[in-house]
């Protein structure tokens, strides 16, 4: 057992209101520089939809992630044999057209325009060239199903649906959507790291945060193609790739990442998971129907004395193990099993998990009146949700509908249980039966309810002590760093000649 710790995340999709506050918080802190305007380290997509960059989930197009070839894990886009041949022109590299051309408006004309017959307008100006431009797409062009006929229809996850289900999704009275916020998953088997010819990308041993060494990146841009989630971005100005850093300077000082901190729906949870690094490769090679449970089984119980001993032997500090015991992520993912990793079939072993969203039940139309297709069979509803289980399973369960059904049933049972307590129109017996059938005890239901709805800041973010002071002690004289922030070089990101 090779125990390591990983700062991990849960996003509770049922709570996301699609306000994009998280994206703005991130942008203001990290990506408001030239060359990064188009980057959204945190973005929020409407599902069904094609997302950002357009159709990122389509690996036929982008060749991201890993594939199993004759029992071996291979990067889809590159590898030692291909790396030099493709270095001059990367055949799988997305271009700005797949994202969008960033723009602003020439607001001055609103003030400076000479008097005339027409109202002056502010025209869009490209943030790349500074010239006037036609806006053709934006980072969130299909927000709230805008232009679904064109956009959502190309969502790769819809492949999992039958033709009938597809039709139903777009019928007005059955229309449904949910939001899907995304950041880098800080994967255990990151394909971005594995693809970098310069070895500039790395995973931090202590907390698992995946970073790009800006001084080593040489713009070979392999990571852009290799990350199946398209969470590394190329800075066209500095000639360096950049990605979500999980706000490590904030984490190191005990603060939640900006997107977590600002989240209006309070959908975000962060905490440490201990896992067995010895099993990374084995789990990443599991067939699709076993891989989700395989990844879950890598996550270790921080209260198990054997695990604790192995963790200590690996130099994991006591307070980090303690923090792992309080981790909300551990509860959602491992204890309750209601949070699932996105697209595990890409085999990068993402460490951001999603609680699948509940959706209204299916409605039908009888002449002019709309009716709901529910009988009182409570569990039947889950399968009659407007978002088909098969869709969610493609997105979050590597195709395993059972896992999604389990997570949704449990959430539904918790709702019934609370409804019986607070509203009283559900009788206790059927609430109890619902819990039993959802594999949920009363204590668990109570805990899920509390962590979902009554969670305070400290319940949601259990930030482990990062012990960066030890890093500095190792390599420098601590007094030399007194009163300095100590985040390495601080020269501006000046483009090379």
């Amino acid at each position, binding site marked *: 057992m090779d125990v390591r710790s990983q700062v991990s995340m849960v996003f509770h999709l049922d709570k996301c209101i699609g306000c994009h506050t998280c994206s703005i918080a991130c942008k203001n802190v990290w990506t408001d520089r030239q060359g990064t305007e188009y980057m959204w380290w945190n973005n929020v997509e409407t599902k069904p939809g094609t997302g950002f960059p357009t159709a990122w989930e389509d690996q036929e197009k982008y060749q991201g992630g890993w594939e199993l070839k004759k029992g071996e894990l291979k990067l889809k886009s590159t590898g030692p044999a291909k790396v030099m041949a493709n270095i001059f*022109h990367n055949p799988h590299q997305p271009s*700005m057209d797949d994202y969008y051309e960033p723009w602003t408006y020439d607001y001055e004309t609103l003030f400076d325009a000479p008097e005339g017959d027409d109202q002056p307008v502010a025209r869009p100006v490209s943030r790349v060239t500074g010239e006037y431009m036609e806006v053709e797409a934006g980072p969130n062009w299909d927000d709230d199903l805008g232009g679904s006929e064109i956009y959502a229809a190309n969502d790769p996850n819809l492949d999992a649906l039958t033709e009938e289900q597809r039709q139903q999704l777009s019928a007005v009275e059955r229309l449904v959507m949910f939001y899907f916020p995304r950041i880098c998953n800080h994967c255990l088997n990151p394909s971005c790291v*594995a693809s970098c010819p*310069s*070895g500039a990308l790395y995973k931090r*041993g202590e907390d698992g945060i995946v970073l790009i060494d800006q*001084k080593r990146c040489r*713009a070979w841009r392999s990571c852009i193609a290799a990350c199946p989630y398209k969470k590394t971005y190329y800075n066209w100005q500095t000639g360096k790739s950049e990605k979500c850093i999980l706000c490590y300077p904030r984490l190191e000082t005990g603060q939640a990442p900006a997107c977590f901190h600002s989240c209006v729906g309070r959908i975000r949870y962060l905490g440490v998971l201990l896992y067995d690094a010895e099993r990374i490769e084995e789990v990443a090679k599991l067939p699709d129907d076993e891989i989700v449970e395989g990844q879950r089984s890598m996550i270790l119980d921080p209260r198990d004395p054997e695990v604790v001993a192995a963790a200590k032997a690996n130099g994991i500090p006591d307070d980090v193990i303690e923090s792992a015991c309080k981790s909300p992520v551990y509860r959602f993912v491992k204890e309750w099993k209601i949070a699932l990793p996105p697209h595990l079939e890409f085999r990068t072993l993402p460490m951001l998990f999603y609680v699948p969203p509940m959706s209204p039940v299916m409605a039908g139309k009888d002449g002019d009146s709309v009716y709901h297709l529910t009988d009182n069979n409570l569990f039947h509803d889950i399968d009659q949700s407007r978002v088909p289980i098969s869709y969610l399973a493609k997105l979050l369960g590597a195709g395993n509908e059972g896992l999604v059904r389990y997570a949704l049933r449990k959430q539904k049972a918790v709702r019934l249980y609370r409804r019986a307590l607070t509203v009283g129109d559900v009788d206790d017996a059927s609430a109890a039966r619902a819990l039993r059938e959802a594999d949920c005890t009363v204590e668990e239901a109570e805990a899920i309810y509390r962590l979902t709805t009554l969670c305070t800041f400290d319940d949601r973010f259990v930030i482990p002590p990062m012990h960066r002071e030890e890093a500095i002690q190792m390599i420098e004289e601590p007094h030399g760093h007194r009163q300095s922030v100590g985040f*390495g070089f601080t*020269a501006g990101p000046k483009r090379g000649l």
Partner: protein
Amino acid sequence: MTQLSHYLDQLLFVAVPYVALVLFFLGTIYRYRAESFSYSSLSSQFLENKQHFWGMVPFHYGILTVLAGHAVAFLVPRSILAWNARPLRLYILEITALAFGAMTLVGLLAILARRRSSSKLLRVTSKADWVLYALLLFQLASGVYVAVSYPWGSSWFAATASPYLWSLAKLSPEVSWVAALPWVVKLHMLNAWLLIGFFPFTRLVHILVVPNPYLWRKRQVVRWNRDPRTARLIER
């Protein structure tokens, strides 16, 4: 007159080369140590991906082959002479070399056409880039011209340029090896020294950081704080 051209040769083929080499070594090392952030291929594929292939690929495959040819002729001239002893082999070598040279030139022209056709690319084209393009264009055009008009260069390079370069390397410069060469050839050589001297101030530094360790490193990279060796990499 001969005196003058003697001094000119000394200036252009002794002084300039040494200045260029000093600039090259000091410049690249200083830049690597002080501004390693600036070492990048500055790829522009992200901004323009349609014409990109048609310039980058022929240019790079071409230039790398041509440079390799020059390097072999410089380092082991005898092998080239031995190979060229049979006319058929000489023809094959000459035609291949010319083909790669022409491919490089075509690639560079495609690169230039691409640069000029996109306002996004112009936005990221520096003055140093333009100087570099001019030098490269002259280098490739003169090289292809020499190959066409003074054939069997693979043989006479080994008998002129190679001993000249060795004499420079041994710090006892001997210009007489190249003094009698035609003026286009001399210009080709002079421009090469300019390219070398200008090298540290351009994007060409990307050639020095080609990613060899990828082939034998482990696929995943993990850096620990606790290991002082790797920790240093983080803090720098």
